[in-house]
C-alpha cells in the first residue's frame, strides 16, 4: 500500500516567481530577513522605552 509521492519538478515553468522577485531562494531569504528586522525593531523598542532598573 505504501507508495512514494510524486515529486514536483523544479524546472516546471509554473514554479517560477514573478521576475521582479528574482529566484525563489531570494524570495525566501527576504521573507526571513524582513522578520528578523521586525523582531529587532520590537526588541529595540522595548530597550529604548524599557522599565526602570
Amino acid at each position, binding site marked *: *500500500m*505504501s*507508495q*512514494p*509521492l*510524486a*515529486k*514536483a519538478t523544479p524546472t*516546471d515553468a*509554473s*514554479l*517560477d*516567481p*514573478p521576475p521582479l522577485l528574482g529566484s*525563489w531562494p531570494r*524570495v*525566501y531569504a527576504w*521573507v*526571513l530577513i*524582513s*522578520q528578523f528586522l*521586525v*523582531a529587532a525593531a*520590537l*526588541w529595540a*523598542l*522595548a530597550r*529604548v*522605552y*524599557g*522599565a*526602570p*532598573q
Partner: protein
Amino acid sequence: MTPLDWLVLLGTAALIIGRGLWVTRRNTHTAEAYLRGDTSQSWVTVGLAVMATQASAITFLSVPGQAYEDGMRFLQVYFGMPLAMIVVSVFLVPVYYRLKVYTAYEVLEARFGVGARVLGASLFLLQRGLAAGITLYAPAIILTALLGWPLESTVWGIGGAVILYTVSGGAAAVAQTQKHQMVVMLLGVAVAAVVVVWRLPESVGVGDALTLAGTFGRLDAIRWEFNLADRYNVWSGVLGGFFLSLSYFGTDQSQVGRYLGGRSLTESRLGLLFNGVVKIPMQAAILLVGVLVFVFYLFEPPPLHFNQALLRQAEATAAAPELAGLQQRWQDQRALLRHDAQAVVAAAQGGTLAELQAAQRQLLADQQLAEQTRRTAKLVIAKALPGRETKDSDYIFLSFVQRWLPPGLVGLLVAVILFAAMSSIAGELSALGTTTTLDLWKRLRRQEPDQRQLLFASRAFTVLWGGVAVAFASVASLLDNLIQAVNILGSLFYGTVLGLFLAAFFVARISGKAVVPAALTAQVTVIALYLTTDIGFLWYNLIGCALVLALALLLTLAIEPRRDPAA
C-alpha cells in the same frame, strides 16, 4: 450602538456578502467549482483569504486584552510562522498541485493507503468541528454582555449568514468575502490605533505613551528564558510555533482549501509568503493597540471589572456593600495612578534620569495596589456568583471601543469583530464540508457518486457542520482565555496530523501498516500528557509529531525488517 453604527455594520456586511455571492454566482454548477473554487485567484486574494481564515474574532477581542494585562509577549507564538510558510511553499504545495488534490488528506492515501487518509481527516474533523463552535461562541458571548444582544440570536445570526453564503457560493464565495472582510479588519485596526492615540491627554505624546507602557514591561515582546511550563517565550514560539504553523498551514484543510484556489502554484506560494511577511507586524500592531489602551486607562479610570453586566449582577447580591467599598477604593487608587502617570510624563519630557526612574517606581507601586483591588473584586464576584467566569480580559477592547469611539466607528469595529468571526467560520465550514464529503462519504461508499449527488452532499455536510457549530456555541461555557482555548485544542491534535504528513513526505521507510497505530498511540499519549503535566501547549505540536515519526519508524522496523539484498 447608534443608528449610524448599525448603518455602517449592516451596510458593510450586506455589500461584502452580496458582492461575494454575485461574482461567484456561476461557480457552483459543478461539484469541482463548488469544492475548490474557480482556481483563478491571484496571490492577493489567496493571501487575504489565508489571513482572514486564521484571524478569528478572538484575534480582535482577546489579543488586545492579553496585551493590556500581560504586554506584547504573546507575539512570540507567531515567531515560527514565517519559516513554516517557506517549508509549506517549498515542499507541500507543489505536491498538492501535482496530485491535483481537493483535500490535503488525499496525499495520505496516495502514500499510506485509505486508513491514514480517514484517520487524518477524522482528526481534522474532530478538532476543527469543536473549534468552529468556539469561534462562533467567543464573539457572541462578548457582544451579548457588552451590547446587550441576545446570545441565541447572535449565534444564529452569525452562524446563519455564514452557512447561507458558504452553501450558496462554495469555496469561491468564501475566498471573495474573506478578501474584503480582511480589508475591513485591517482598516479597523488602523482606526483603533489612531483613536486610542487621539484619546490620550494632549500633553501625552506617542513617545510618552511608550515610556509609560515600558514602565510596566508591556513592550517586552521577546523573552529569552527557556521554561517548558512558560506558554510564551522565544524558544516555544520559534520551535513550537513552527510546528503549529507547519501543521495548520500545511495540513489543515481550512487553510489548504484557501490556497488551492490559487490561479497557479506561484500565486498560492506568494499568498502564503505574504502571510509569512505580514502576520507578525499585524499581530504586533494589534498587541500595541492593547498596550495603548492600557496606557489610555492610566488617565481615564477603567471600570473595576470590564464585564459590566457581570459586575451589575454581583452588585444585586449580598456582596453589594463590599463591592461598593472596593469601587470607592478603586476610584481613589485610579486618581493616584493618573497623578503618577502625569509625573512620569513630566519627568520624561524635562526631568533628569533619576527623576524619571523615581516617578516610574512610584507608578509601579501604586499600580500594584490598584491591581490588588481588581483581583479582590474578582474574588468577591466569584463568591457572589458561583460558577461564573470572572476573567474579563476578553472584554477590555470592545468595552473601550463602545465607550470611547465616536458614532460610526463603533459600528466599524463591531463589523471587524463580526467579519473576523464570519471569515474564519466560513473557512472552517467549507473545509469541514469538503473533507466529510470527499474523504469519508465519497471515499467509503461503494458506488461513485455523480456530480449532482456530490454537489448535494457537499452542501448538506456544510449545513450539517454549521448546525453542529451553532449547537455547540449555544451550550458552550466560557473557557480560560478564548484564544488560548482554541490554540490548545489545536495543539493537542496538530502534532499527530503533522507527524502523519511529515512521514508521508519525508520518511520513505515508514510503512502504511505502521503509521496508523503509531498515530493513534501518539494521540492518546499527547492527551494523557496534557491531562497530567503542565507542559506549555505549544510544545505538544512538536511532541505529537516526534512521537508519530518515532513510533511509526520503530513499528515499521518491527513488522517489516529490511530485507538483506544478498539473501
